[in-house]
């Protein structure tokens, strides 16, 4: 252990003080408006300390990353998917792959309980659970030539737990796609500006695909610049369309949008990748990184004040209009991706491990990227908390509660304990050139209002409507990319499963199988999307908790695989590193599943809900917010499906957890009985820095490696 020098000690003391000051102000201020600067200070201070100390401890003491060990990228280098990639490039790659709509939507919805509970979990959750999961999965997958989470579960836990993990992943994928699509539908419904600009992304992407395939293969940067220029033009053009006689053609009801989206999802997923998916992915990656950087700058430059309460009454009463249930467990379920996301385990075990240069870089790539994702969630929380709480609740409560006019909405908001005048509600919609903002659930419109508030402070009020639609476009763009990519992955899983029954399914180029499985996957998420749009109790209100539960259950699977691997690889002493987050995550998520299935509160428990509406049907009564007998039957069907789904997901994960425990106990009793499928040690011939900046020692290693193998120098 080398002695720390005084300058380093002073620097880290200062960082700690900044973070502590942020937390103190956030925690102690009540009934006064707090600047978002404190939230930023608390987040950045905590991230810095966690990265410097905790992540380093995990990397070197627990995982014992070895810079002498060649990674799969070095050993299996084929110049295509396996190739050593510069750590700064890989950080960008990995971040672009994990960041999506989740960390933007979750915090917006969780803001109904106030900004404090959500912020605490986003920061504490990422430090102790989310970033740890991403880094540890990345490490173990790197030691196994980039095997996927499913393969690791099968090999290290067993076929039973492995199959349950596979089924759970498939079900989770379907829910994810349905909820993401629902967010898009709610953002684009009755909005000709938004619908036009999103529709235009399809011809733009087709053009880019043609350009890359036929005109100038591989010239990604230039075609992306052209694409972004066209995209911004489509965005400006959206306003002209909305003001012209074409407006009607692009003003679509939610149920029409569902049909378009399902058709799009099906067609997109059977087209070759080069036509639509690849170019769309370039567009959405550029937009994603660009907008996130702009938003971070906007928040830091304008430092807006938070108008939402630190903790609202809904946190303890559990009767919030956005989602039902009390703070524990539902705030954790709702935040999901920004703090801990099971889906990241699919990225950390797959693409990234095949590209990483050195084991020592798992801290920067795995832990570092997740800290960046968490800061995106913090920005979403800021955006949701700086808008008027009255407007927030008018936008996020289900239509059945808010009503159809600004007057009704104003009264409904007063019932929640907040005030906003009908005029203010009407003005807010007019400012962003939307016909109405009432019950625009799903988080995207609320985030867009927050973003337009921040950006128009910099550019002036005349740009407000543009920024609103810019934010909508930015979210819809990568959700549509995720729909396409996710449908393909779901199809791939289904083809693999059906291949066990009927061999040809496994051949991914077998056309009938391709079409059949694509239709099955789109049909499944399309069903839940349809249900969500027609749900009298509010689609987001009913489905978002299942999405959060699904994602957190996948995280439980990933953490269980990590813990099993820590135990089996002789790191029992350190198994708590992923074991404690696993116990916490399993407790939260299984409690939420339990409540969703068994709660006697009809707002929370699906089966209670079902029986109340079924009894009313038997008596011939219509219960609000249902408006007709048809609505009543819809509620009964949906509650049954949602309840069964919640129960099945939880059961599958319990099977995985039980099987993982069995394997761990067996290993502790008889270490010789278990096998570890790790790739054998091969000595690395190259050198590469572990962190963003090379240390003097690493610079010397780089120079020495260059001398030894001049041909390898890049």
């Amino acid at each position, binding site marked *: 252990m080398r002695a720390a020098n005084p300058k380093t000690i002073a620097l880290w003391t200062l960082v700690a003080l900044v973070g502590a000051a942020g937390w103190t102000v956030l925690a102690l201020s009540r009934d006064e408006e707090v600047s978002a600067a404190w939230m930023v200070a608390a987040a950045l201070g905590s991230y810095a300390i966690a990265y410097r100390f905790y992540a380093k401890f995990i990397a070197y003491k627990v995982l014992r990353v070895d810079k002498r060990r060649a990674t799969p990228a070095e050993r299996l*280098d*084929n*110049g*295509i*998917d396996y*190739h050593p*990639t*510069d750590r*700064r*490039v890989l950080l*960008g*790659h990995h971040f*672009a*792959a*994990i*960041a*999506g*709509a*989740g960390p933007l939507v979750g915090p917006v919805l969780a803001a109904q309980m106030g900004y404090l509970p959500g912020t605490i979990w986003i920061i504490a959750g990422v430090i102790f659970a989310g970033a740890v999961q991403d880094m540890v999965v990345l490490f173990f997958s790197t030691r196994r030539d980039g095997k*996927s989470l499913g393969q690791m579960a099968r090999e290290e836990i067993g076929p039973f737990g492995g199959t349950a993990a596979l089924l759970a992943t498939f079900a989770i994928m379907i829910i*994810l796609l349905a909820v*993401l699509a629902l967010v898009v539908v709610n953002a684009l419904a009755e909005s000709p500006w938004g619908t036009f600009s999103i529709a235009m992304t399809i011809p733009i992407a087709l053009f880019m695909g043609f350009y*890359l*395939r036929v005109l100038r*293969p*591989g*010239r*990604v*940067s230039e075609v*992306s610049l052209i694409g972004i220029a066209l995209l911004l033009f489509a965005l400006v053009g959206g306003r002209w369309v909305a003001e012209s006689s074409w407006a009607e053609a692009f003003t679509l009801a939610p149920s029409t949008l569902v049909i378009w989206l399902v058709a799009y999802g099906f067609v997109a997923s059977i087209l*070759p*990748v*080069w036509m639509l*998916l*690849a170019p769309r*992915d*370039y567009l*959405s*990656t550029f937009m994603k990184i660009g907008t996130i950087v702009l938003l971070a700058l906007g928040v830091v430059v304008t430092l807006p004040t938070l108008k939402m309460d630190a903790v609202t009454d809904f946190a303890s009463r559990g009767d919030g209009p956005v989602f039902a249930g009390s703070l524990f467990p539902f705030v954790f379920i709702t935040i999901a*991706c920004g703090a801990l*996301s099971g*889906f*990241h385990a*699919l*990225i950390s075990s*797959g*693409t990234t491990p095949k590209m990483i240069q050195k084991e020592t870089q798992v801290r920067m790539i795995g832990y570092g990227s997740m800290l960046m994702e968490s800061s995106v969630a913090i920005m979403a929380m800021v955006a949701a908390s700086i808008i008027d709480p009255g407007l927030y609740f008018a936008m996020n409560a289900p239509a059945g509660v808010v009503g159809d006019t600004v007057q009704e909405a104003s009264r409904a908001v007063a019932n929640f304990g907040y005030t906003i005048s009908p005029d203010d509600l009407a003005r807010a919609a007019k400012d962003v050139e939307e016909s109405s903002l009432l019950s625009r659930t799903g988080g995207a419109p609320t985030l867009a209002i927050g973003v337009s508030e921040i950006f128009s402070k910099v550019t002036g009020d005349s740009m407000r409507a543009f920024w609103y639609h810019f934010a909508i476009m930015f979210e819809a763009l*990568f959700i549509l*990319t*995720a729909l396409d*990519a*996710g449908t*393909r*992955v779901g*199809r*791939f899983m289904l083809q693999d499963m059906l291949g066990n029954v009927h061999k040809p399914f496994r051949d*991914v*180029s077998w056309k009938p199988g391709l079409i059949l499985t694509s239709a099955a996957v789109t049909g499944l998420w399309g069903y839940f999307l349809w249900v969500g749009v027609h749900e009298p109790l509010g689609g987001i209100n009913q489905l978002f908790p299942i999405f959060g539960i699904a*994602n957190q259950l996948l995280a439980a699977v990933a953490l269980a695989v990590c813990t099993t691997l820590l135990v089996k690889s002789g790191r029992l002493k350190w198994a708590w590193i992923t074991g404690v987050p696993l116990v916490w995550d399993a407790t939260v998520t299984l409690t939420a599943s339990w409540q969703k299935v068994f709660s006697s509160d009809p707002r929370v428990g699906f089966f209670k809900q079902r029986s109340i509406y079924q009894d009313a049907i038997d008596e011939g009564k219509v219960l609000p917010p249902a408006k007709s007998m048809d609505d009543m039957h819809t509620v009964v069907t949906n509650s049954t499906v949602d309840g069964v789904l919640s129960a099945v997901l939880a059961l599958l994960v319990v099977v995985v957890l039980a099987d993982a425990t069995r394997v761990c106990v067996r290993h502790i009793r008889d270490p010789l009985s278990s096998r570890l499928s790790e790739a054998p040690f091969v000595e690395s011939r190259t050198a590469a820095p572990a962190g963003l900046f090379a240390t003097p020692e690493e610079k010397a290693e780089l120079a020495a490696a260059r001398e030894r193998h001049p*041909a390898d120098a890049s």
Partner: protein
Amino acid sequence: MTGLLRRALRGVRWYVRELTDESAYDRYVAHVRKEHPAAAVPSRRAFERMRTDRQDTDPRQGFRCC
């Protein structure tokens, strides 16, 4: 000063080319020349086709998260 600016611009260009995988072809050619000197190097067009078509057969490559 212009030297510094030029270096910064070169850095940005390098980063963008790497991040978008525009440099994939150059990398692959270098790889083939070094590891299999006798093998023929595909044209850029053929290589880019092969690369995107691989994603068709295994869509887990390049999967995007929520």
